[in-house]
């Protein structure tokens, strides 16, 4: 009897549903890993909907970088029967897509993805302009020409650019190929340094010292997680460090012309609102972020021995002293 009682208590504990008020939307979120940029996406999404007066109740799940857990979160969400699913980053979006395939009762549930570089190669949609089904989202494909344009304004004579990334990340691999193509056109060589985990970043940055004019970090989850190691080496060795996301400037990169992932999330939130107002996700083209922001860090520039052209100082959206 005692056993039964305790068992029932445990059961009720786990089964208490979230208290939902009338006319509110339930949104299930599957995020791959805790990471400043991905966290900013979620915050932007939630803030936008809150400001627009959309009453939303969230079930946020985080796979803590574990693929098996990402798969389980997929089935977990099928059980939550939300009004909308949001998947942040490629592995979780793939896991949700696969779970949806097996859940006939979720056939009409809208599915938004965000912070995904190449939704076509990830197998999520066949056509960016007409995704079909109930799936659409926002892609964070980098406008690489703009990024490299910024680096070239710092270093018009750039000969060798070091690129620090994890060869195990699909997004980074396609970015590096893009940078190489621009390099061939503009006449600089790309020196790659790869890591496989955050703890490799320090050593990989050191390997670039003396071989490159500047270092560029794409939106690579592994390297960005341990950006401080790269900042440290670059400060010691007077090497300029540029990034592809503006959050990294606050953490010590000289400059970045890039996404504000918070805005990325807001853009995704706007798509969610349109869906709640009756739009058909399958007919909404996959969006990408158009406006880029230039962020500069004067302290890092000084420490890394970089002079910032006056024109860039004038056009910066945000300057860290």
């Amino acid at each position, binding site marked *: 009897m005692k056993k039964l009682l305790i068992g029932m208590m445990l059961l009720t504990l786990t089964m208490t549903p979230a208290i939902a008020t009338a006319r509110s939307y339930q949104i299930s979120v599957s995020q791959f890993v805790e990471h400043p940029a991905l966290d900013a996406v979620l915050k932007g999404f939630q803030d936008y909907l809150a400001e627009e007066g959309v009453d939303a109740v969230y079930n946020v799940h985080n796979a803590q970088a574990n*693929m098996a857990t990402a798969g389980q979160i997929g*089935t977990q969400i099928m059980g939550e029967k939300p009004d909308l699913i949001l998947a942040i980053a490629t592995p979780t979006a793939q896991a949700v897509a696969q779970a949806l395939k097996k859940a006939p009762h979720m056939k009409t549930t809208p599915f938004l993805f965000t912070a995904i570089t190449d939704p076509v190669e990830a197998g999520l949609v066949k056509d960016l302009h007409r995704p079909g089904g109930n799936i659409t989202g926002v892609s964070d494909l980098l406008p690489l020409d703009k990024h490299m344009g910024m680096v070239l304004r710092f270093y018009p004579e750039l000969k060798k650019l070091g690129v620090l990334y994890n060869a*195990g990340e699909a997004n980074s691999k396609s970015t590096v190929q893009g940078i190489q193509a621009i390099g061939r056109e503009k006449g600089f060589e790309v020196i790659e340094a790869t890591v496989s985990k955050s703890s490799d970043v320090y050593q990989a940055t050191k390997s670039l010292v003396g071989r490159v004019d500047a270092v560029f970090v794409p939106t690579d989850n592994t390297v960005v997680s341990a950006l401080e190691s790269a900042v440290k080496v670059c400060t010691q060795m007077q090497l300029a460090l540029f990034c592809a996301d503006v959050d990294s400037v606050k953490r010590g990169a000289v400059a970045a012309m890039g996404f504000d992932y918070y805005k990325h999330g807001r853009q995704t939130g706007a798509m969610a609102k349109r869906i709640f107002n009756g739009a058909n996700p399958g007919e909404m083209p996959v969006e990408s972020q158009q406006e880029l922001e230039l962020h500069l860090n004067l302290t890092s520039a000084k420490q890394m021995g970089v002079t910032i052209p006056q024109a860039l100082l004038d056009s910066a959206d945000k300057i860290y002293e």
Partner: protein
Amino acid sequence: MSWYAALGALEQGLLYGIMVVGVYLTFRVLDFPDLTVDGSLPLGAAVSAVAITHGMHPFGALGLAMAAGFLAGMVTALLNTKLKILHLLASILTMIALYSINIRIMAGPNVSLLGVRTVLDWISDLGLTGYWAAPLLFGLLATGVTALVIWFLHTELGLTVQATGDNLRMITAQGVNTHNIIILGVGLSNALVALSGALVAQNQGAADVNMGVGTIIAGLASVIVGETLFGRGGITRGCMAALVGSIVYRMAIALALGLKWGAFAFTPSDLNLITALLVVGALMTPIVKKRWVRS
């Protein structure tokens, strides 16, 4: 925990259960702590994903994945037996090498299997769809594989594998070439792990080079959970306990994912902590049970 989440956990438990039986084979039967699994799980996924996208039958791709896993295990065992590298280090070396090899195999870090025919489509062709197809198929595969392993361990060769783990000096005195037995055992274990990885990839819709992270942790936890709940009595019981342990472990994660305490909700980042606590809870049950029976 919702019905779907429970079925999902059962599905994952069965899928990874094949891996856990493999870990049981090295960790308990052979007494060979083998970390290769963190690399051989994505290896199996990579090989099967690439094979399928090149037009191979999904079931044939499973066989190819097992062969690749066997080779990976062989490398670890060869490093250990022939080059006298400590088993832990030998397996770590193979594991980190496999990271690069897997990227080579996939020509990149991730191969998508969304929209491609997998083993699951084969069973849904039979008319079974939705949530039941996956647990049923993986249940059949996992119990079949476990039964085969149990059968193998009772053949003459299998008994030699057992004896190699139990008493190396005795079995050497019997004139058995223990090197070959270790190579066979570790190879077999990693073939199972790779099979598990191949099925995970086909089930999750993608093979990813990072999907092996934490495999050995889940494997060891599942083996020990199984042993604690079902006791360590012989090989047959051990193999079955490994499979059940895997399901219990995944149920703990599903429970942690759905945990809400009235108005107080855990934050998503608490997941690993809650999972650990739930496993501790599961491990406590035999002790608590004993106390209750006495009182």
